[in-house]
């Protein structure tokens, strides 16, 4: 397993190099010149030149790329161009709010999705199965924006169960007060695709020979489903859940914007609006590294869940 892990880690290098090149060229070609934003309403060409010099964007592309590589290797992406806040500080302070929402969201949606998927897979072809599938298709076809608008209107405004938006200081206050509606929206959005996907995993396993054998040996249905089927279906489910996490961190910007959660997704959108390259660079590289690490972790978990799996 150690050799496998080392080999996979070595494979990170070319992938990361590709990410660095892609981000660098995308930003330089389509990102816009940040100096014109930072220079304000009335700026002279000299001011623009001064800002470009300070940001280092007047350097030859090769020099800029080398600086970027050094930043990736050192993990120090400098400071935000628009707020002067250290990028590391931005991540340190925004990660907490993002995880406060995303971890419960992933846990709840995964558990609910697995339970519902196992149920409908068990009664496949029945009216319940078909009704759930139709509901999932409908649920999946509705935009997340609609979920946010409707849930915010109904649960926060009409019923007054939750604040419309906000974020406090104490972790428990944030988790139990400000995050709840955002989590509910996130679960509602992800439940439909999760059920559909997990159902196929369960159906694959239910039709396997070992299930038939277990039943023939007189094993109870509860044991067949919860011990044998669930264990084998868990492998692709774990992969799916883990792979969602890095993307969700940066991609949950809509939820974070509407509910006023000071998380990473919101910061990414701000950075894009402000052409704040240090933050964009850092987010892209971190998400790429996290995705690769999570992939590796998922592969290693396969082995832990199912000893038959061979890592090559």
């Amino acid at each position, binding site marked *: 397993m150690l050799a496998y892990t080392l080999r996979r880690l070595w494979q990170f290098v070319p992938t990361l190099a590709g990410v660095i090149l892609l981000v660098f060229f995308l930003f330089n070609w389509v990102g816009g010149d940040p100096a*014109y934003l930072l220079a304000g*309403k009335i700026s002279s060409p000299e001011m623009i030149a001064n800002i470009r010099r300070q940001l280092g964007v007047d350097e030859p592309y090769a020099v800029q790329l080398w600086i970027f590589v050094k930043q990736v290797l050192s993990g120090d992406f400098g400071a935000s161009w628009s707020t002067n806040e250290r990028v590391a500080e931005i991540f340190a302070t925004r990660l907490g709010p993002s995880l406060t929402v995303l971890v419960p969201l992933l846990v709840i949606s995964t558990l609910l999705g697995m339970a519902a998927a196992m149920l409908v897979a068990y009664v496949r072809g029945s009216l319940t199965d078909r009704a759930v599938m139709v509901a999932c298709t409908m649920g999946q076809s509705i935009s997340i924006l609609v979920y946010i608008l409707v849930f915010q209107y109904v649960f926060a405004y009409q019923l007054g169960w939750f604040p419309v938006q906000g974020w406090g200081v104490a972790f428990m206050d944030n988790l139990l007060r400000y995050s709840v509606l955002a989590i509910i929206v996130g679960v509602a959005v992800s439940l439909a695709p999760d059920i559909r996907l997990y159902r196929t995993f369960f159906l694959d396993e239910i039709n396997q020979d070992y299930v038939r054998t277990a039943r023939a040996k007189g094993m109870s249905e509860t044991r067949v489903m919860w011990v044998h089927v669930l264990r084998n279906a868990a492998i692709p489910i774990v992969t799916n859940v883990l792979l969602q996490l890095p993307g969700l961190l940066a991609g949950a910007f809509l939820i974070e*914007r509407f509910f006023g959660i000071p998380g990473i997704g919101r910061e990414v959108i701000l950075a894009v609006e402000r052409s704040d390259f240090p933050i964009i660079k850092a987010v892209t590289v971190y998400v790429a590294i996290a995705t690769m690490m999570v992939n590796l972790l998922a592969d290693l978990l396969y082995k832990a869940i199912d000893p038959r799996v061979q890592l090559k």
Partner: protein
Amino acid sequence: MWPAARSLAIIALLAAPAAWAQPEAKILRVTFQAAETGFDPARVHDYYSSMIIEAIYDTLLTYDYLARPAKLVPNAAAMPEVSADGRTYIFRIRRGIYFADDPAFKGRKRELTAQDFAYSIRRFYDPKNRSPYAFLFTGKIVGLDELAARAKKSGRFEYDTPVAGLQTPDPYTLVIRLNQPDVNFGYVLAFPLTAGVAREVIEAYGDESPSHPVGSGPFLLKRYVRSSKIVLARNPSYRGKIWDFDPGDNARFKQIAERMQGKRLPAIDGVEISIMEETQSRWLAFQRAETDIEYQLWEVAPTYMTDDGRLKPEFVRRGIQLDRTVDPEVIYLFYNMQDKVGDAPNPVGGFSKERIALRRAIAMSYNIDDQIRIIRKGQAVRAQYPIPPGVGGYDPQYTSLIPYDPRAANALLDRYGYKKGSDGYRRQPNGEPLVIRYTSTPTERDRQFDELTKRSLDSIGIHMEIQKERFPEYLKAQKQCRVMMGHQAWIADYPDGDNFMQLLYGPNIHESNNACYDSPEFNRRYERSRQLHPGPERERLYHEMTRLMETETAWLLTDSRVRNSLQQPWVVGFTKHPVMHDEWLYIDLEPKPAY
């Protein structure tokens, strides 16, 4: 034992009502619709950061809260003594103004002095700060531009080198000498970003200074979660002010004065600002009384307002208050007036009769009423003059020469040889294809402008291409005179017409003159107007300049947006000032009803 217990009980009973009677802290809750960038006055450029800076720091001068048009009044200094030649300003700083306590002061009370303002002004020249508002001072103060030039070469700004234009003979006197007389210089020193900062604070926090504001103003920063929550508390070191403003004949101002006159300021204990980018969140939060003032809800204005600009009865019944003011801004459609856009010929540029006719025809085909009705949802007024209401030099009687008249526009194009081809689109008088390239940013609002502009040009048979640029690239293209046609907005930095007229001044090409308009006649009048104080002579020049701009049709003025500020019933004394960024110092909160 018993007597002691009895005594304790009596004390508790006496103390209890006092505890019950403890008034609830008056915390004003507002929202920003965009994130702030920081609170270091020399380093920020966004409106929302300036609001916080205005609440935390003191400027030399400020504005009368109720005077319209806006009027300068003393603040940290008395009104300046200005020399006869208009080049020397002497400010007498008030004694006894103290900064809020901060570890940078090492436990000492720190008084605000003339040196703080001199240091703050120098910071605008320091290239390291890359100050977006350096233009307020650039080229104006004797000796400072030379210092800035040296700093660009050496990489280090000399804060301690004496300069003739900025002197502090004693801690309470600031003498500023200008290269040229500037009648608007007082306004510059009322701009929140020119506030006085303490050098030891800036040096103590270094690059972190944007998140450690320490001022002598009415509030201090109590809690700060970037891009999410900003909590201000009353500054215990603040000297205080008494609410004492003349409401004039304005009925609403009279109501405000009746309730606020004589109150000690700030009347509120703090301000809690939440960053809420989404309109729906702000609107629902306001309706749920989670916020006290909403500064702008354009998108949902039809939900709470009638077509004639009043609150709908259901909101009036709830006691919601509406403050309706026209923003000190103009929105305009501009043409690139240069002969070439980059290396390519510019079909709308130049001063030949044909080109003027083309620009005029495009302007006459553009339906401003549709822009106000559809894009602004009725929340804007037609702009006739380059200077908006509330700004010195505004003329409410002025009427634009350019009517909306597509038929006449078509006739004008026919007359000047813009013949239609077989594809139904017009060609240039020399027979070459005529394609107008209109540039905008990829936002939902700009898409609406694209459609309206395209429809206008279609109505006169002109082929328009839309070029999309991200906002920084759009700014860059404007400054490099590479935008053939586009929309632009300008909001007042200070309440004087000069701030708007300079947008058309030839030497400001590559800076703020995005039409790249260079008319010797206009330039001559503008230079003359810069020497004059507001008055009939300057008004006459502004009229002539505006007529000239219209005749040559460098811009089509479209509208100025109306700001509808909603307030909960318990907010007292609020009205949107045309220039000041926030009004938190001048308002009060009454107890909220228990629901």
